[in-house]
């Protein structure tokens, strides 16, 4: 990890996101803090509905403004994201920070060719001619190792396989050399073998281009594969943050322990059956995001729950044996 003398690329402080619906308020994100240095990969791990996508979309200001209340602060590469105006946002998105999505089929416009869709991004940000933009598109397709890239430039999204589409999506996202890539479950919709290829490609491109990545997933194996640090998300909070080794070897939060028990971890020595073989290790229902509990959100499902767990949300504190970089929001993890 890089030195701490320079300011981090991403600084998120006490981020909260609430959606006001007609009948209820959804507390999607409830106080997320983290920093990310240039060239570093943060994996956000959490089950469906824990607020991962909302966190990423907030970083891009993609949420519907009218019904969304955002609290806290976000700085990315010197930009105060929450106070960007229209023009500022357009210049920020795709250039400073880019995003790739879970379903590349849905993220591409079906009636434009892959080449056109990459080229228009380059034209939008760099004001270059069509020829230059197309040349960049070709270069990017080659970079993400799409075979016969020249022909693929003219392909429509439906003419490609899922893995090729995700490669093309990565090519698009990286076309303007962003400093930060936000990846929202980019391998979830793909076959297992293709998943690994995409993860390796992402890791390789991240190293080559030196960009920072926030990689969101519910798959522990994928998170371990690409991340330097891992944040475990539950009910809109990071319940545990630390570098990959520490979190995997010495999980401090009961939720993380449950997640790890339910997954296979390549190369970690923990084995629990075949990949994709989900074991119900955490009993109980996911948390209610409308009526937030006053204490630890995991308390109703936690086998170690005590009386004090239900009164106050635990602060993220250094774990007993993981050092200062390993923060856990659990009263038991602290010595």
């Amino acid at each position: 990890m890089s030195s701490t003398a320079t300011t981090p690329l991403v600084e998120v402080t006490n981020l909260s996101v609430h959606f006001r619906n007609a009948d209820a308020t959804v507390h999607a994100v409830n106080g997320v803090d983290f920093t990310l240095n240039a060239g570093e990969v943060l994996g956000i791990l959490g089950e469906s509905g824990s607020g991962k996508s909302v966190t990423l979309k907030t970083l891009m200001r993609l949420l519907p403004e009218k019904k969304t209340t955002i609290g806290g602060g976000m700085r990315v590469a010197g930009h105060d994201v929450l106070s960007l105006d229209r023009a500022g946002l357009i210049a920020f998105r795709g250039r400073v920070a880019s995003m790739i999505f879970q379903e590349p089929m849905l993220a591409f416009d079906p009636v434009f060719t892959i080449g056109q869709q990459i080229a228009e991004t380059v034209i939008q940000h760099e004001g270059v001619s069509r020829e230059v933009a197309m040349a960049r598109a070709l270069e990017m397709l080659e970079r993400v190792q799409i075979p016969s890239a020249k022909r693929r430039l003219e392909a429509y999204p439906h003419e490609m396989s899922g893995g090729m589409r995700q490669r093309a999506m990565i090519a698009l996202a990286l076309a303007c050399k962003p400093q930060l890539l936000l990846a929202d479950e980019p391998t979830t919709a793909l076959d297992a073998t293709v998943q690994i290829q995409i993860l390796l490609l992402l890791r390789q491109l991240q190293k080559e281009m030196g960009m920072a990545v926030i990689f969101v997933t519910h798959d522990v194996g994928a998170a371990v594969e690409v991340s330097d640090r891992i944040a475990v998300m539950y009910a809109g909070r990071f319940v545990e943050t630390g570098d990959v080794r520490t979190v995997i070897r010495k999980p401090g939060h009961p939720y993380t322990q449950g997640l790890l028990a339910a997954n296979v971890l390549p190369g970690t020595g923990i084995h629990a059956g075949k990949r994709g073989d989900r074991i119900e290790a955490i009993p109980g229902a996911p948390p209610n995001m409308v009526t937030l509990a006053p204490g630890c959100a995991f308390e109703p499902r936690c086998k170690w729950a005590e009386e004090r767990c239900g009164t106050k949300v635990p602060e993220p504190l250094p774990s007993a044996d993981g050092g200062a970089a390993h923060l856990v929001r659990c009263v038991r993890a602290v010595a």
Partner: protein
Amino acid sequence: MFTYILKRILYVIPIGLAVSLVCFSLVFLAPGDPLSAILPPDATTELIERLKADYGFDKPLPVQFGKWVLRAAQGDLGTSIATGRPVNSEIAKAISNTFMLAMFACGIGFSFGLVFGFVAGYVRNTWLDKVVTGIAVTGVSLPHYWLGMVMVIIFAVLLDWLPAMGAGAGGSDAWAWDWEHVRFLVLPAVTLSFIPMGIVTRTTRAVVAEILNQEFVQALRAKGMDSLGVFKHVVKNAAPTLLAVMGIQLGYLLGGSILVETVFSWPGTGFLLNTAIFQRDLPLLQGTILFLAMFFVVLNVLVDILQSIFDPRIRR
């Protein structure tokens, strides 16, 4: 792409045959004898037989049909019983009038419909959306002929701004592109434009709203496209559906509106059809219906081809 277009064009032949059979037999399903309308009540049997032979009504129906189709394929639709003029020239005259009317009506209806629809789709569920959608629904629901009469009362009778009937001095033969003649188009064209306006507004609103909800629009914003850039994507995605709807609407209007053309005495195909029905002018009626039906078939093929150009997925 080319084979797709060729295939679509070849489909016209069997459909055309089926359509002409239906046109031909439909008329014979109606009761009454076409000749009785032009014959004096005291006509001798001899005269009736001679006229039947002249018009070919004495032959068995399949033979009549075969002859009719063969001649129709060569562009000859027979002679009008009422006027004695070729059906072709009667239709040709009426078409040019209906065409003019339809183009004006579509020009007005599509422009307003597209603008209203895009605005409503972009600001859906706001008060502006509700106003625009309200206008569209009203436009579709109002009966045409009633609207036409209201227009006549307001703009022709009360205000006396525009003429109420016909195509100007000398009828359609003396048509010219000056205000003296064009002003006769205004009221029927505006009346006719309400339905395409309403339908195009509703369709556009629904299509635009649906596209804006798709994930790729969020992806476009995420890569930094400005509003104009996103708009281009919305337009190209909406185009196939909108073209189809507008094509069909244009088709309906080109088919001529019996009611509106009758209200305004506009000498188009609808008016012609009306005349043919009331005069029991069988050749004119068959010819006009066949022409209109074939017109719809060809129109559908054109719409299909245009759609395939906009949406590559259709071609497969």
